[in-house]
């Protein structure tokens, strides 16, 4: 008897008990579905981090006010500050930095026509673009002369025109109101996409640092600084350099902790990697547990099935089925159950990943490798759960089996 025939008989038996079979494989469906979604989340995150690393490079350091996250979170912000003086000091005194970019940030009401949105307004310098690897789709970036003249000009993040429901091209040269001050739109940035470890830059509006300081916020307190490390200089050396300059600037006594945090952007990727790997461990855990339960489900149903179909087994044996035939029939049936569970689980996981991707703007990537592993594992689960019941079935004495009712 061919394998195809065995599968046909198995499918017939499964169809004959459609509801029960569906309930049997439900656990495998859910398990495989969860694993596919989890793995897709991991792959997506990794891909996003990778992409970010590729665009940003690893030679850019971020400096944040407050203590390291590792020591119980950011210290109170009114005590600790990072100011434009620090920016000047770094530019002046650091030996290993090729560029320093200040970001003076605050939320402001943004109005255009009758549209009204709330956005992050960032005061910065022209080199922001080069250091952060940003590109413009329209118009120009802030210039030194804008800075010197404290001009009210604004470069919009990618999402802003959409939020204002206006085409980027027609926004160029128009006036928008930022915190009741009129600015001229001079450019629009290209999309960055989801960013990890910072506010979404697509939703921000960029204005000259001087304008932000003197005309809009009236503050010199920076949200953060970016520093580009000189070529051929180690990131660690640059960090020591920054620490030296800032500790002196802040008059921190030896032995006292820093009131700022220097972050290597590679740390973000490390963080994401470690989250991903933790996630992977959980995924394997979920997989193991759900498949164990799934296997027990299949096992118990197959045992019931063998008892229930004792007479059928007897009849088949009387008609010439060998032990091997019966063994194959029941194992194939269990494998088919497992495979169906895997198949529906993959469909569920794929649909779920798609839904989450589109709903939450998170990149989820279902990889072929995951799918193949899911198939292989569910088939193996079916096989393992089927062996014992199939063996019992094959050992039945045809005479006893025929008498069974």
């Amino acid at each position, binding site marked *: 008897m061919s394998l195809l025939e065995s599968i046909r008989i198995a499918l017939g*038996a499964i169809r004959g008990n459609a509801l029960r079979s569906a309930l049997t494989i439900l656990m495998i469906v859910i398990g495989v579905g969860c694993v596919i979604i989890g793995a897709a989340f991991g792959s997506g995150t990794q891909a996003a981090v990778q992409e970010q690393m590729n665009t940003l490079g690893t030679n850019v350091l971020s400096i944040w006010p407050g203590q390291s996250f590792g020591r119980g979170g950011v210290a109170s912000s009114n005590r600790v500050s990072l100011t434009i003086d620090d920016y000047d000091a770094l530019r002046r005194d650091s030996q290993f930095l090729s560029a320093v970019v200040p970001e003076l940030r605050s939320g402001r009401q943004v109005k255009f026509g009758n549209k009204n949105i709330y956005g992050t307004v960032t005061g910065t310098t022209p080199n922001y673009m080069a250091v952060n690897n940003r590109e413009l789709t329209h118009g120009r970036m802030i210039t030194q002369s804008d800075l010197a003249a404290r001009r009210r000009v604004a470069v919009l993040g990618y999402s802003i025109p959409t939020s204002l429901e206006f085409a980027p091209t027609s926004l160029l040269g128009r006036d928008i109101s930022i915190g009741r001050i009129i600015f001229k739109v001079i450019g629009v940035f290209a999309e960055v996409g989801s960013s990890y470890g910072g506010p979404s830059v697509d939703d921000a509006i960029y204005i000259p640092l001087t304008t932000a300081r003197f005309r809009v916020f009236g503050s010199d307190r920076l949200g953060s600084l970016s520093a580009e490390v000189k070529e051929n200089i180690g990131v660690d050396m640059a960090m020591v350099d920054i620490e030296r300059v800032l500790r002196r600037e802040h008059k921190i006594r030896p032995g006292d902790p820093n009131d700022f945090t220097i972050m290597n952007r590679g740390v973000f990727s490390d963080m994401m990697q470690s989250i991903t790997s933790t996630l992977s461990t959980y995924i394997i855990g979920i997989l193991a547990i759900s498949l164990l339960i799934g296997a027990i489900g299949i096992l118990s149903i197959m045992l019931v099935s063998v008892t229930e179909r004792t007479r059928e087994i007897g009849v088949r044996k009387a008609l010439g089925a060998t032990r091997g035939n019966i063994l194959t029939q029941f194992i194939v049936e269990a494998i088919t159950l497992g495979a169906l569970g895997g198949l529906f689980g993959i469909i569920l996981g794929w649909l779920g990943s798609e839904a989450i991707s589109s709903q939450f703007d998170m990149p989820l990537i279902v990889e072929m490798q995951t799918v193949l592993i899911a198939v292989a594992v569910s088939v193996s689960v079916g096989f393992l759960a089927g062996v014992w019941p199939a063996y*019992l079935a094959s050992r039945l004495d045809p005479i006893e089996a025929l008498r069974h009712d």
Partner: protein
Amino acid sequence: MFENEEKRFEVRRIKLWGSYKPTRSIDKTLMATPDPSASTDSPPAGQVIDLQSIHKNYDMGSETIHALNGVDCRMEVNEYVAIMGPSGSGKSTLMNIIGCLDRPSTGEYWLAGENVSKLNDKALARVRNRMIGFVFQTFNLLSKSNALQNVETPLLYSGIGRRERRNRALEALERVGLGDRTFHKPSELSGGQRQRVAVARALVNDPAILLADEPTGNLDTRTGEDIMALFEELYSAGQTIILVTHEPEIAVRAKRHIHLRDGEVTEDYLVENG
């Protein structure tokens, strides 16, 4: 005896769930493949069944039950035999041995020139598949399969290809007058029709013997008559038929009666009704 059978049945059912010591003693030497040299004393052509002092013993712990006590019997091709006897006479045991579902404890059973009393399980399955067509009292159709699939089942185990299987199954269904019920499930057929499907299934592999166990036991008188008429038709076409029954009015259709009592043949005679 009957009580013992019941008890034995109960004990066996436990087998599915755990280790259990077989209650039936099977001589290990009988499990071996047949010795080729033994085939020198094969029976003459035309003889389909040769039972030589068949014994079947069941070991019931303290006592041994002799279900068959030296049965000797020969049957020719195209005989129509009824095996009769009361409950506990050993006729079920004999039927199981003739049907190759069981092996004799001692004695030899030659089926169509082959000594099948020493075959292993796999070889016995093959013999059942090719040589024996079973018809049961309770039809024993596969309830989830339609008539055609039921009839195809023995061919499936013979490893016959899809197309030929289908053709032969259709042919067999035509032969029992069910050509128009091919795709009906057993639940959609009447009792008589179900038994006809079972007969078609028994015939589909062109067996040496058609072995029917109380084939009319679950049918009303008129439908039973129809099935017996079908048997007669098959007999006329050259089929060897063995009927196991305790109903004299059914047995009377056969051409030869074998009576069993306490595991022994008490009477064996030809019926002169034509």
